[in-house]
């Protein structure tokens, strides 16, 4: 679909410059958004995507440049200003009130009034009307929390429509959605586009970007690289523009899956019949030295649950765990850490980084926790460890005293990886380590995993991106509906086989 170039733009940003202490976050960036288009903003972490969005939504003030919305020059000093101008944002982490009902969330601040009170009946009717216009039939009186993230996101979009948004910003909306949910979301997006809403779309999934976008703007290191109609920008050209170099890195990792693993000895970690009622049916898992075991399955298939039980993050009510052939109790994460098992959670913000602590404090946290509070790791040793890992993993900014909360997702992930590598684990469990991070950081992390496993580290690697799993792992464990359905040898499995297996294998056998 092409957009008529003559339609006057709804948003025009010219020469936007934003400085943070010590950093030029955006340097004279231009950005144009037209009614009835889906416009993707692409760039690595730290390229300035979020900063540009925050300038447009009034979260950050701009140091130079101009923002014109619907032909009118605007200065946004609060997010409410931007909302008044018809700009609504739906974030990756849904920012609605999960403890209110769907209807209350949609209509919040726009409830139908009757006298001095609220006419709840009319309010819910109005909410239902808005939801229906997006093809959603939900019970508006149900709690928002009772719905999936995907539905919550669609509710957030409905809310934006109540606010009569002319511009809808979708920041990583698909990162926690499964395939069907993405389709539903895209249906809604196309519908809104047809109604003339301008949509700014940010996603790390290239497939989705190409599926939905009309136009792409690429940023790199805070500067504009270019704006292109989708048809004129093939994928490899896009990636090259984003990272500024050819992406030969990923190809070099590809052989990792063909490495031969000696599975004759004692496994590093062996779980037998590990399960928890209502969470995961008993499953077996064994990992040998230097092996990368991938875990594949849809979101909610039990892959996260399996590793959480293994790590002691949740307590299993049946099954045994052996480390180097010896039975051990792993009821708490720290038990696992004592046995040199580390887990990096899929939920980076809530379960990973400690946002208000510095990069250095976050990296040291794992080893310090293992040592106990009495024996503080000397400052000199801390500095050495922190310096080593910041360099080895390429954490940016390379400032140990920066607050982790201010880093981009990819760099937070690197800090977490550093925290766990510093504890010298024998088994490293990585749950979605590459979710929501850019191509460059993804390649860095995958390369590190391949390198460390070649040196003898055992790794469990969970990812929704199956190519990644197949590239890194020698063996793939597949789960479905909270049950392990089998294992595949990665060397003779291709993507289609794996997808087919996830979808169909073991059908009926468990009945």
């Amino acid at each position: 679909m092409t957009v008529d170039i003559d339609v006057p733009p709804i948003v025009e940003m010219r020469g936007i410059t934003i400085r943070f202490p010590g950093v030029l976050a955006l340097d004279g960036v231009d950005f144009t958004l037209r009614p009835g288009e889906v416009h993707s903003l692409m760039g690595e972490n730290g390229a300035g995507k979020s900063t540009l969005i925050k300038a447009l939504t009034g979260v950050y003030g701009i140091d130079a440049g101009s923002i014109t919305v619907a032909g009118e020059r605007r200065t946004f000093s609060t997010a409410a200003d931007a909302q008044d101008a018809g700009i609504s944002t739906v974030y990756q982490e849904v920012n609605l009130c999960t403890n209110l009902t769907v209807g209350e969330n949609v209509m919040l601040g726009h409830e139908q009034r009757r006298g001095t009170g609220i006419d709840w009946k009319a309010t819910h009717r109005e909410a239902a009307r808005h939801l229906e216009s997006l093809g959603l039939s939900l019970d508006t009186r149900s709690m928002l929390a009772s719905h999936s993230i995907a539905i919550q996101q669609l509710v957030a979009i409905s809310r934006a429509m109540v606010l009569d948004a002319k511009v809808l910003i979708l920041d990583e909306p698909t990162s926690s959605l499964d395939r069907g949910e993405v389709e539903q979301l895209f249906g809604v997006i196309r519908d809104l586009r047809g109604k003339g809403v301008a949509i700014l779309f940010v996603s790390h999934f290239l497939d989705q970007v190409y599926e939905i976008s009309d136009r792409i703007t690429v940023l790199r290191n805070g500067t504009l690289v270019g704006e292109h109609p989708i048809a004129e920008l093939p994928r490899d050209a896009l990636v090259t523009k984003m990272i500024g170099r050819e992406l030969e890195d990923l190809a070099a990792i590809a052989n990792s899956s063909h490495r031969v693993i000696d599975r004759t000895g004692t496994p590093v970690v062996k779980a037998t019949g590990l399960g928890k009622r209502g969470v995961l049916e008993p499953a077996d898992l064994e990992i040998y030295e230097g092996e990368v075991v991938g875990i594949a399955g849809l979101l909610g298939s039990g892959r996260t649950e399996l590793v959480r039980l293994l790590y002691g993050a949740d307590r299993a009510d049946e099954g045994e765990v052996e480390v180097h052939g010896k039975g051990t109790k792993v009821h708490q994460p720290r038990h696992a850490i004592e046995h040199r098992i580390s887990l990096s959670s899929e939920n980076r913000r809530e379960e990973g980084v400690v946002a208000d602590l510095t990069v250095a404090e976050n990296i040291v946290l794992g080893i310090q926790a293992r040592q106990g509070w009495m024996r503080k790791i000397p400052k000199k040793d801390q500095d050495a460890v922190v310096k080593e890992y910041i360099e080895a993993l390429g954490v940016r900014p390379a400032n140990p005293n920066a607050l982790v909360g201010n880093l981009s997702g990819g760099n937070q992930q690197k800090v977490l990886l550093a925290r766990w590598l510093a504890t010298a684990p024998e088994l490293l469990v990585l749950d979605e380590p590459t979710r929501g991070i850019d191509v460059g950081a993804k390649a860095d992390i995958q390369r590190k995993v391949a390198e460390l496993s070649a040196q003898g580290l055992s790794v469990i690697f969970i990812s929704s991106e199956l190519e990644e799993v197949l590239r890194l792992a020698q063996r793939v464990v597949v789960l479905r509906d909270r049950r392990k359905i089998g294992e595949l040898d990665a060397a003779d499995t291709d993507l289609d086989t794996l997808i087919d297996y996830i979808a169909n294998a073991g059908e009926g056998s468990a009945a």
Partner: protein
Amino acid sequence: MTAIYRHRLFWPIVALVTLIVINAVARPQFIKIRVQDGELYGPLISILRDSAPLMLVALGMTIVIATRGIDLSVGAIMAVSGAVALTIIDGAEDPGNVGTVLIACIVAVLVSLVLGAWNGFLVSVVGIQPIIATLVLMLAGRGVALLITGGFITTVNSEPYSFIASGYLFALPFAFLIGVVAIVILSLVERRTALGVLTEAVGINPEASRLAGVRSRSIIWGAYIVSGTLAGVAGLIYASNIKAADANAAGVFIELYAILAVVLGGTSLNGGKFSIAGTVVGVLIIQTLDSTILFLGVSSAQSPVFFAIVVVIVVIVQSARLRDGLAALTARVRSRGAGVQDSDKVEVA
């Protein structure tokens, strides 16, 4: 210069110094310090001595707040501690015996420690919200104290026990020195060991800390034990000062003043980053303000209002959001041209 201005203790110290200056200008003898028999006397010294109970309670509160908690039971623990100590001394054959007093104090502090451990158990093991968990003891504690004293206000005349609140050591009030020792020990333990940073980690993100292998439960539990123990010592000082165990008056509202001191010192009630130095300054602000009210002769009926007004001013001055807002306003007014006369008003920021 900006480094000083932005230091998080800048505004609390400004508030404290301002209070002292106001007093000194109003009545110059405020800052006079006399030496008598090798001991220091004067309004400032009194402030240091009188601040001891609040200092101890606020230090404990700082650690608890850092873990995202709150301890409302400190006043009640003070009452229990005083009741235990005085009942033992009162029942002894020789109340003036140093050994008796020492045993009484140790038992009282141990009882306080157990009460703190009870709070910590409810919060960290049972998982009750801190405000509710400590409310239990806040309400029940004074009843326990009354039970211990048999419903009476136990009074004693014991030379060594009185020494705690009114004695002098190294020319300084003994009570003040207890506070100093607590500050030093706590600072050393928090910063020389990893307890400080682990406490902050637990306070900022309990789940991430647990998954990182931090013993969150022990750290939270420990914080309430520290708070209870320090409140127990504070209770001893209070009871020593009035030579009586008054279960209904000991430490009334001190939990609120302690929370106020912690907040004035720049520690957020949301937990995480904490500052012991900040709390010390916060306590001194409150105590100086208390003395100011007496000193300026504000009638006792009006003193709460006066206190409230000053606290509101201090809190507003410290508010980062307000300062940022005023700074932004100033910048905006300036950018609209220097011709706008109103900008002068905003400069006050």
